[in-house]
């Protein structure tokens, strides 16, 4: 008796066989986009998708003489799903590239799959330094490790902030950022008064903020995941830390463009370092922001620009290989790519396949009645601080 399971098994076997055959000269190139479209990280998925669609709307759907097609799948932010979907996309849908990955563990989970299948994957969101070494087929257009934290440290030391407390969320990216900031700040002659780590599942910031207040630093450097940032900002103001003369400096996740409106006036004056602000002044960015606002009805944030640039990288690679979809050729074509993104000039480091970009120091200000991160200082061509040295 042929059960459904047999059918699926044999279908999978046939699919594997045909995938092993030399890549067919089809006229369509499929790109598998794996994002958390539901669950607690749905806003990441929504933003990246908006960025990807905006790129295709502005630049058409052909690259290297082929029609580009996006296959969007939802992994709900769980790593085993991401891995399963990646396998399905490669084996059944025969995608030539993968894209997306909202969080570090999700990207980590697909590393063995893409290495084995020799399919390049462009990371649009996850930022931990460690991911890139897991597979030679990863390229990244979000941020490389604590890229945004190091310039904040340099800026703080230059601007007379001597004693700083760091407060980070206790998980991978938090540790990266804490180390990146601390190393640089000490080198510049600053003093870390205290390093506070907040549990990931933390209902109330009160005790940690009180600890910061009692340490009486010049400033507190903060990294918390984007969604929690708003809650943190409110409690920061309520506890009177700003009145006590403690400055808030942070990476751009805390004053995420997507949430800035909801945080409201408490955010005014906060100084952050990050690679993208929706208020970045360039024609590329104006076109990008307008496109996203018109079609997706949201203000793009750094996740959206990650998706936008991932598409650019994919198009550029296809153009360079003249439409050849061999994975190894594609990833080689991505190395050293250089272009002007809505965020500013960026490139892909040929050695690490990781992004090299400018980091901007911004201050939250009111512009046309809305809150924006206004850039006022630029640190050029920052590499992943953990790998570059």
């Amino acid at each position: 008796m042929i059960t459904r399971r047999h059918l699926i098994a044999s279908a999978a076997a046939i699919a594997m066989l045909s995938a092993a055959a030399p890549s067919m000269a089809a006229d369509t190139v499929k790109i598998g986009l794996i994002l958390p479209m539901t669950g607690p990280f749905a806003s990441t998925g929504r933003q990246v998708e908006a960025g990807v669609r905006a790129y295709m709307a502005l630049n058409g759907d052909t690259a290297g003489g082929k029609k580009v097609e996006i296959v969007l799948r939802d992994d709900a932010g769980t790593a085993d799903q991401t891995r399963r979907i990646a396998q399905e996309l490669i084996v059944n849908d025969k995608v030539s590239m993968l894209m997306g990955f909202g969080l570090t563990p999700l990207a980590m989970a697909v590393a063995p799959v893409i290495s084995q299948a020799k399919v390049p994957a462009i990371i649009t969101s996850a930022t931990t330094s460690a991911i890139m070494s897991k597979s030679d087929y990863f390229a990244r257009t979000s941020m490389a490790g604590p890229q945004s934290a190091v310039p904040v440290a340099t800026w703080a030391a230059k601007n007379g902030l001597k004693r700083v407390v760091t407060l980070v969320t206790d998980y991978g990216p938090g540790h990266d950022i804490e180390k990146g900031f601390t190393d640089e700040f000490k080198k510049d002659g600053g003093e870390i008064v205290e390093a506070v780590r907040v549990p990931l599942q933390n209902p109330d910031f009160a005790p940690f903020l009180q600890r910061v207040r009692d340490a009486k630093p010049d400033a507190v450097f903060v990294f918390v995941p984007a969604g929690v940032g708003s809650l943190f900002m409110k409690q920061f103001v309520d506890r009177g830390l700003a009145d006590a003369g403690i400055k808030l400096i942070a990476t751009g996740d805390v004053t995420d463009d997507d949430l800035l409106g909801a945080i409201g006036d408490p955010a005014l004056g906060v100084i952050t370092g990050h690679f993208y602000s929706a208020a970045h002044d360039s024609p590329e960015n104006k076109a990008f922001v307008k496109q996203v606002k018109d079609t997706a009805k949201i203000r793009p944030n750094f996740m959206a620009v990650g998706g936008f640039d991932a598409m650019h990288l994919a198009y550029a690679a296809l153009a360079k290989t003249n439409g050849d979809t061999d994975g190894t050729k594609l990833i080689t074509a991505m190395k050293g790519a250089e272009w002007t993104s809505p965020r500013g000039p960026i490139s892909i480091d040929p050695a690490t396949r990781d992004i090299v970009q400018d980091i901007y120091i911004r201050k939250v200000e009111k512009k046309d009645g809305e809150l924006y991160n206004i850039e006022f200082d630029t640190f050029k061509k920052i590499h992943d601080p953990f790998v570059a040295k």
Partner: protein
Amino acid sequence: MLTILFDGVAYGMLLFILACGLSITLGLMNFVNLAHGAFAMAGGYVTVILMNRYGISFYWCLPAAFLVTALVGAILEVTLYRRLYRASHLDQVLFSIGLVFMAIAAADYFMGGQQQLINLPAELRGRLDLFGIGIGRSRLFVILICAVLVVALQLALTRTRFGSQLRAAVDDGRVARGLGINVSTIFVLTFALGSGLAGLGGALGADMLGLDPNFPLKFLIYFMIVVTVGGTSSITGPFIAALLLGIADVAGKYYLPQAGAFIIYAVMILVLILRPNGLFSREGRR
């Protein structure tokens, strides 16, 4: 130092309001309702929707959150919960955890997965300095409301006719029915009250604890700790337990940030070793 104590008390009070409904259903009605957090979440979302979409004042949102969740609680009691009073505890657990997942999925679908934010009225923001102690206004507000509720609940359960009818109905439903007490109505009202209180807690806590679809699971463990440590005999037990845990949690995170998240569990284990039935247990029953 005193600020930490104050924050701990505020956090404990909030835990109590969130969990006391559970201690009523679990302790008095002997029903394991793991979906309790879902009612708290509902209250939080009612507040968010009323405030952010319709611009209604925060103070009106609190009673609204209470009433809406109480109503939802009453409807669910009549349609679903009632059938499971006699079922085994395992059935009740499975049923209510199923409800939790449905609630999470529903909240995710209708409201989205992100953190919800509310803007408290200006007079509740910032902090006061009383005798050198920094006091957050919103936390003071939480403490005042909770204190009133604790006294009111205690009086209602021990001094009113409804309270004694409820205790009679729980102790022996058949006899109570024989005496002309309408047990079903009493249970609906009690369940609605418990759910409503959770909703109120969710509304009050939206600013302090945040609100996202995972709220029921995130706080389930805290509710369970409060009820377990407090015992289920009265309102005072969970109240003292909530205060103790709130203060221990806040102080632990302040003085020992590295171990902060574990303190609350250590306290629970210690209490349960010393008093396996909770701080205040009902001796000699069942």
